[in-house]
């Protein structure tokens, strides 16, 4: 007989079951259309309610009797020194966060029942909300970074799918792509953290990491620094801190409840949660504290100033949200972890309320928003910058998206110009594909039949001579005679322009960057 807290795995699993159920139902066709709305939303609500009840029960038990802080349900996989347990952390932070997530998701799902009624994407929406709920619950209850990473990824994917909820709209899909591309940076960073932790700490478990000898040893500064750095970077991306903020300000394309739960209340705090988990590391690393202070501080100011000029409710809310999240990072940098934990929870609740009420905000305004302070209003340059959101948007386009796009184009060109000819499936098959070509070919045909041969020789010598003669003729004809058009001259010219292009390509920053990166890899 297992104890209550050992059922903690059910908390994230239940919403996952709901996702699978709704998804399966949609594929099989039993819950499609308006008739299937009721079932889909009921499944989502019941599973979330059960999750919530379970975690509340565990809370109560923890409060009265106390429970083990780490629950290991099983082993996910082992490979050499690398092993990931199916473990959960039920310390105060874990319990608080899990309860918060379960509560807000339940309320948001219930809210969506009426709000999304008769939407074409109803089932999809509930499926994704459940999936997100699974992801968030996993993140906050995970006992190790491996499990957290799973939640991290699923949250990213469900967010991507919900931004593109209205996938007929160009803006929605484009912004969704930007969100997921930006988030890749954080994901890569988290992966690196997993790698470093395994390498240097020999564990991914939060509890063991916190108790690691490295923390007290003199020599581990570098290693600790790298682990914290990668984790904090991941946190910055997920919580949309500078310079990664633009993805979230463009993510508000989905239905109001999804904007609320993802960007207003829950997902944006995932990064802060990660940093809270890092408490022992940060307390031992001045650099990490400074990073948090600086980036958090800058983001807070950035969010504040940008929020002032926004005129649509969702944008003003999101900017003030990232500003407050920046404040939380500053709090972490100052070492006020408990205060930040409490504020995180309050902030999540408040934003969830505010976002869900966003359509009515205009009616609740009895007076215009109080104008910005006079000293600020005088600074027109700052105003222009705030209007452009400090160009972060364009900057990320410039630094991230466009090089990626160009890279893919280059790869495509490489593929079609180099790889395909080599492996033979050339896309320039030598066939007639247009009438003009047909015309040309039929004109040439007559010529070729007469001119393309040398006099016939007889005997062995004769035939050898003939072969040689043909070869020379070929050389003469193809490389020299045809000169201007498609002979050697043009071959050389072609070579030249090709080399030019290669050189040009190589001088572009992205390749420079690639080469530098390659060099690093070799050195490491």
């Amino acid at each position, binding site marked *: 007989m297992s104890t209550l807290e050992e059922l903690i795995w059910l908390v994230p699993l239940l919403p996952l079951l709901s996702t699978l159920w709704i998804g399966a139902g949609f594929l099989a066709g039993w819950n499609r259309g308006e008739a299937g709305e009721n079932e889909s939303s009921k499944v989502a609500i019941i599973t979330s309610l059960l999750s919530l009840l379970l975690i509340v029960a565990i809370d109560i038990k923890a409060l009265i009797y106390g429970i083990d802080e780490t629950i290991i349900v099983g082993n996910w996989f082992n490979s050499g020194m690398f092993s990931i347990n199916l473990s959960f952390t039920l310390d105060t932070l874990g319990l608080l966060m899990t309860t918060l997530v379960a509560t807000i998701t339940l309320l948001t799902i219930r809210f969506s029942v009426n709000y999304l009624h008769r939407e074409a994407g109803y089932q999809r929406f509930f499926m994704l909300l459940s999936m997100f709920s699974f992801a968030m619950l996993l993140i906050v209850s995970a006992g190790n970074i491996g499990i957290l990473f799973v939640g991290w990824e699923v949250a990213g994917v469900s967010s991507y799918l919900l931004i593109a909820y209205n996938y007929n709209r160009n803006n929605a899909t484009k912004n969704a792509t930007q969100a997921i591309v930006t988030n890749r940076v954080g994901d890569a960073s988290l992966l690196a953290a997993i790698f470093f932790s395994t390498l240097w700490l020999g564990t991914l478990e939060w509890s063991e990491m916190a108790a690691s000898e490295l923390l007290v040893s003199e020599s581990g500064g570098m290693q600790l620094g790298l682990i914290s750095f990668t984790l904090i970077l991941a946190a910055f991306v997920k919580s949309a801190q500078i310079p990664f903020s633009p993805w979230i300000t463009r993510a508000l394309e989905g239905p109001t409840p999804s904007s609320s739960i993802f960007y207003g209340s829950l997902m944006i705090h995932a990064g802060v949660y990660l940093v809270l988990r890092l408490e022992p590391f940060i307390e031992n690393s001045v650099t990490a504290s400074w990073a948090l202070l600086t980036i958090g501080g800058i983001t807070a100011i950035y969010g504040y100033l940008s929020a002032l000029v926004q005129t649509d409710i969702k944008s003003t809310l999101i900017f003030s949200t990232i500003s407050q999240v920046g404040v939380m990072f500053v709090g972490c940098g100052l070492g006020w972890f408990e205060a930040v934990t409490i504020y995180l929870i309050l902030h999540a609740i408040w934003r969830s*309320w505010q976002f869900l009420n966003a359509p009515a905000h205009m009616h609740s*305004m009895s007076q215009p928003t109080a104008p910005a302070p006079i000293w600020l209003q005088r600074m027109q340059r700052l105003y222009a910058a705030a209007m452009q959101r400090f160009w972060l948007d364009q900057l990320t386009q410039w630094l991230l998206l466009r090089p990626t796009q160009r890279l893919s184009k280059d790869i495509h*060109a490489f593929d079609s110009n180099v790889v395909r000819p080599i492996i033979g499936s050339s896309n320039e098959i030598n066939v007639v594909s247009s009438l003009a070509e047909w015309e040309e070919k039929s004109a040439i045909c007559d010529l070729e039949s007469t001119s393309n041969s040398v006099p016939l020789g007889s005997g062995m010598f004769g035939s050898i001579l003939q072969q040689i003669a043909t070869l020379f003729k070929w050389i003469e004809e193809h490389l020299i005679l045809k000169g201007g058009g498609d002979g050697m001259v043009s071959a050389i010219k072609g070579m030249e322009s090709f080399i030019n292009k290669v050189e040009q390509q190589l001088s572009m920053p992205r390749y420079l960057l690639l080469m530098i990166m390659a060099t690093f890899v070799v050195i490491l």
Partner: protein
Amino acid sequence: MSRQLILDAIPHFEHFLPGQAPIKDFVHHNTLHGYQHLNFPDALKASQERTGARGYELDERYRDYFKSGRINLSDLNSSLEQCNSDKESQLNIDEPIFQIGSNSGSKEFTRRDIYLQALINPLPAITACQLSWEIEEKNCLDNFQEDISPEARENILKSSTLHGKEAEKDVVKDLWSAILEQLELHHLAIHPESLLDLSAEEASRFSNSISNELGQHSQVRQESTQLFNKLVERVGKDLTLRGLIDKISGRDILNNIRPLLIHQIANYLDEGMSAWHSNQQQDGFYQVWRQSATLDSSWIFDDLPEWQDELEILPDDALDTIIVELKRIGIDESRWVKYLEEIALEIPGWSGMFLWRHLNPGYKNLTPTRVEMVDYLAVHLVMERLFAQRVCREEWQLEANLDVLRWYFHRRSSEFYVRYHLFNGKLPEYLVTHAKPLTDGGLLSPEDYPKWKEQADIIWTWKQSDNSDQDSGFSIYRSGWKLFRLFQHLGLNGSNVRTITSEQLRSVCITIANLSEEQRGLIWLQAYERNYREHFFNAVANNHQRGLWADRGVSTEESTSTIPVAQLVFCMDDREEGFRRHLEEINPKIETLGGAAHFGVPHFWQGVDDKEATALTPVVLVPSHEIRENEQPQCSLAQENHLKRVSLKERVLTWFNQGTRRNFILATVQITIGAPVALALLGCKIVSPLRSGNNLKKLNSWLSGNNGIVTSIDITAEKSTNPTPENRQLGFTTEEQADRVESFLQNLGLVSNFSPLVVIVGHGSISQNNPHLAAYDCGACSGRHSGPNARLFAAMANRSAVRAELVNRGITIPESCWFLGSEHNTCDESIIWYDLDKLPTGLKSNLQQLQQDLRDTQSRHAQERCRRLASAPKKPTLKQALNHIQGRAVDFSQARPELGHATNAAAVIGRRSLSHGTFFDRRVFLISYDYQTDPDGKILERLLLANGPVGAGISLEYYFSTVDNENYGSGSKVTHNVSGLFGVMDGTNSDLRTGLPKQMIEIHEAMRLQVMVEAKIDMLTEIYMRQPPLQELVGNGWLLLSAKDPESEQIHIFDPTSGWVEWNGERTPLPVVKQSVEWFSGKYEPLTSCRIENSSEAKL
């Protein structure tokens, strides 16, 4: 000269830009108000050409109606005949086309048969790939088409047996080959990609079949040049530079411009959402933008190196800038205005809002006061050219100028040819994969040019092949497939087809093509309207002399028995039809009337808690009078207290709601304090909306301490001050009051037989989380609540001085009669009463009885409303129904608190007796008018003039938002995002969405309002001839007018071309029920009429 031309043209932009006011002042209006001078079908067409928005429902929707019996064959036939009578349409429906069979058993097919098939069954053109799919996957050559009727199927099989073919497979194959034979076409079923690999035979056959005097490539060049010229010719007609560039590069610079522009406009027009605005606002938008742009560094990241230099040389004046820019692009002066119109249409929602503010200077005294359309156009133009410049540079290293582009593409016609087809045509995928890399790579050097040529040749070849969709002659995919489907539906087999000549087939094809999308839409719409009309007329004719209160006893002898126990005057609103019907069912001794709910007393209203006065008037008027509500002296202390509390509450709410999104460090504190309350609210409101809603109301009222505060209104001015809207007069003089009361009572026809209690019922709608709140309110009061008007009217009519004056004018209101004002909340059905303290004690019991009846009415009406709400309980009890309806109103997760005017279909201007006792499914506007009190038609004339546009506005807004919600409506509410307090966007970067959201129109049935007037047609004709506004609305077909003869069952339909035509439709007796609920219970679809025995035949 041209400067003035531009300035003069700008106000006319309102003809094609959305004219929607800021969303808090939403008032229903004809979405195509700018085209109202045109005929309805022409207007729809003109708008479609301009904006691409569809004017009719999709064929599929109508076909669904046809299948479900909402449109029948006789409707369609009648509509076809109606369209046929229009000479321009050239339908010639009775012209025979071909004949099947020999003389004895021959059957003639006319154009009508073909039209009908083309309407009922889709006869689309098909692509090569689709045909392969149909043949290979759906076995269309082995089976009949799925949608073919059993009779047609039987016919074909039976007649084929005579020719020795029995199996379905053979019959269908034979039909297909017969068609191809007759058309002399060969279906080779070559896969499109095999065109890339032409065999020698194919190529030579192909090349022989095409005349090539010039040589293939020269033809390509020639065609390309023509195409290019045609395209450039469109710039300044229906295309902008951005459009042109999009068409030749596939790069839409609007995507770059839109976010930059939107943020700037929104911040400029903002009504209080943002905390920080430019400090140059007084200089106009152009200057604000210029300053902001100069300080902006976007150009660095956007690859716009010329940004700074360009900005420096811009003229200071917006209009000059416009002219400079137009010249630089190379637009001919004669096209400037047109070009600017097209620019405005690029982002119609935002342009429309800008223009609205331009045309309504001084709106709400907002800053900036200066909103000039030229500023906006100038900014848009500059941005367009800058970004176009970037594309032109990157793609071709050219200037963004029409002449330069012309010069370039005349030299490189192959490049243009490839680009044009790649980005505009429907190139098959295999060609796209070949052509796309060319445009990606930027092949600019002359060495690369042969690649363009080669690709152009390939595309040209593809275009010549059967696989492309050619416009001329017969083709398998267009003519062949259409005929294949048509003949199956007509029940004809292969042998039949072989007797039809190719000339006849050609004319069949032409006939199908004759029916354009718009033509089909119009035919369907008319058929659909006719179907409703027939039911509606039948119900009215059936009700002749059945309804109560037909005769008010214009004769002087009044007997008390004919006086109703109470008279309730509602708004003409279609939503009140149900409410009135239920009330009359409950107590047949009550009479109800309807009128526009401004009740003839437009004024500026300032409630006791209001900070400023708002105009409660139809949107076309600006009142000159102001009415203030004041607390009664004994309550002044309480009121003072209340106001303090309210202001404190507002400050607290503002501190939290706005502070948490505006402040920085303070926000942290605010959130920390506010969050626990938010959690409690969130939980309660989501888990139990109704209970928490009620408790919150109680809490609110306790907090604001307004219990027991009695207010009154000062309505009387001592003497007239010759008021104007700027110089308003407080209250109305007795004379003015008498004028207004007289006029409105005359409108109603209520000039005698007054009940002891006359209740004037205004209305409004209160719901949560709903940016479109005003769209549910009273249209006659500019989208506000009309309760104050009801209260004001009642107060006027109760004054003895006014009554005395009215006696002089022939209206005697007995002393025993008392007027009461009230307001009906159409969302949760509640009713507020005004000035009950002044009610004579003798009438208290009357009122109690009435209130009891109204309470029953609320539940019954709620029950009826539930039937159209998908999430409401099915077959609810009265209690359940009312709970559901009230719950919706306070549920902040409800995107459909109520359904508004959805399903409105008709209007009756006449006595209640005409509609009394008949179920009209909440679809009819009811406007009281008594022909007996209006011998010279003056009253009717003003009623038509005032209410015609209101009804048309509501009905047409619903119409257009329904037929094309994407373009005329505002899409789904769930992704809406309120911007600047004046409109909604989709997400954070879209155009401003105008019109109605999807949630408001999803059950609406798009048709024009059927206006029935109970009057003599001669009188109506006279009025019509006198009134150009009516000629526009009715004559151009925006409203459908009919007249019911007051004294007989006769109904006449007004046809704008031929005048009055007597209706002689089928008359069938209506089903009879005791109560409405028997008729609608368990039914969720629109219902036809029935008669309600209880209320119509009750003995008084």
